[in-house]
């Protein structure tokens, strides 16, 4: 078991292939440093992101979820990010109501040329998620047929 001071958050980054993923790539190729806490998943478009992905991320034990796509107006598929914006906005509000601390679900727009901006956002998100602490939402020891089993999340 790690010491609390050693604890580092794990964050899943759902990045759109055309902008944010390329932005993250640029951050790397231009040798900008950003926290390695973000594990990146490439999606074809931010419009592909089902609210299910966000919840599944939390269910799997990620401490935070970062959703990022092209700036409004720049979507490769014209309107994907506009739709994503509405979907994510309502998901964020709803998860807050359910009892998920708001910093766990983050969203931003990063273009392919904004490597620096991606690095900044990654650091910011990591900082905020570190502040809210480890994701214990789905943790629990629970009893199955009288025997205690440790939840594997």
């Amino acid at each position: 078991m790690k010491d609390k001071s050693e604890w580092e958050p794990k964050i899943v980054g759902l990045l759109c292939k055309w902008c944010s993923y390329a932005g993250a790539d640029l951050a790397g190729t231009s040798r900008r440093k950003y926290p390695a806490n973000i594990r990146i998943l490439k999606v074809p478009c931010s419009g592909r992101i089902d609210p299910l992905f966000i919840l599944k991320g939390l269910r799997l034990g990620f401490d935070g979820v970062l959703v990022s796509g092209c700036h409004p107006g720049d979507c490769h598929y014209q309107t994907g990010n506009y739709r994503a914006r509405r979907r994510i906005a309502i998901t964020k509000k709803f998860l807050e109501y359910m009892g998920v601390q708001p910093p766990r679900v983050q969203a931003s727009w990063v273009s392919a040329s904004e490597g620096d901006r991606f690095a900044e956002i990654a650091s910011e998100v990591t900082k905020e998620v570190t502040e809210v602490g480890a994701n214990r939402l789905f943790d629990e020891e629970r009893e199955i047929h009288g025997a205690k089993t440790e939840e594997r999340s």
Partner: protein
Amino acid sequence: MEQKLRNEAKALLEEGKVDYIVGFESGSLKFTTTPLITKDKNDVGRLVVNPFIANNLAKFLTELKGRVGIVAKGCDSRSIVSLIQDNKVARANVVILGVPCEGIIDLSKVEKLAGRDRDEIGEISRQGDKVSVTVDGQKSAFPISDVVFDKCLSCELPTPKECDVLLGEPASPIGQKAAGQADIERLKGKTPQERWEVWKKEFSRCIRCYACRNVCPACFCQRCFVEETEPKWVEPTANWQDNLLFQAVRNIHVAGRCTDCSECERACPMNIPLSLVNRKLEKEGADLFDYQAGTDPDAKAPLATFKKDESLGIGQ
């Protein structure tokens, strides 16, 4: 009203304007009603309209091929409008027989008040804003607000707005929108941890029978994410974590289309307060997108459309 409905239904079938009539008939248990789906004009005599027509029949629309004449209360008509918006049903293929609704009586509430099982109750009848219940020949009256479903207490649209035939005089709402927000406000006053504990407790009862989903008129996916195996999004076993994930995602999926008909809550065998979830989402949809589900068949569902110049607090 009942006779008018029967006449209308008969005429529709005889003139060939509809292929099916979907309405209510008396159920096999006392006071209950059950859906009646018929092609036969001789069946229309079985149609009933009474304060026990609880089901939201809009669910059947997506499953019936052809033109359908459907009996709809205020809330049901909103579900139908939602389906029209989503292109699941063509407006031209539905004849909405609107029932002005004065509140649907929740039998379990009556049982609780009368202290008797429904089989032992002689008669339940409505007089003005009172409901009189006869037990062992003795009449007792209860205020209507004590015996109707919770959803009726926050219903402001009891008369179907979108309908072809209105079967009676428009009804005045017995509820107020704000009534439905009281318990949500109470939840909002708690800390995130406390709220999560509340849901954890509620959803640990869920047995994942999927009755909530199956009864929901807004849940019309051919294939639901909970049944996908590749990738497997949720475990099929009922544990509170996956139950919570299922309920949260299902409700986000129907956000903007859910009209708070509360069929999910009524169908739930474990009495989980599901309307606490979707009432909140309905409110969020209304606040974020200035939209009320199921009121305008020409409008687009909020999550199927967008405005270019809204920020919604996303991205800096």
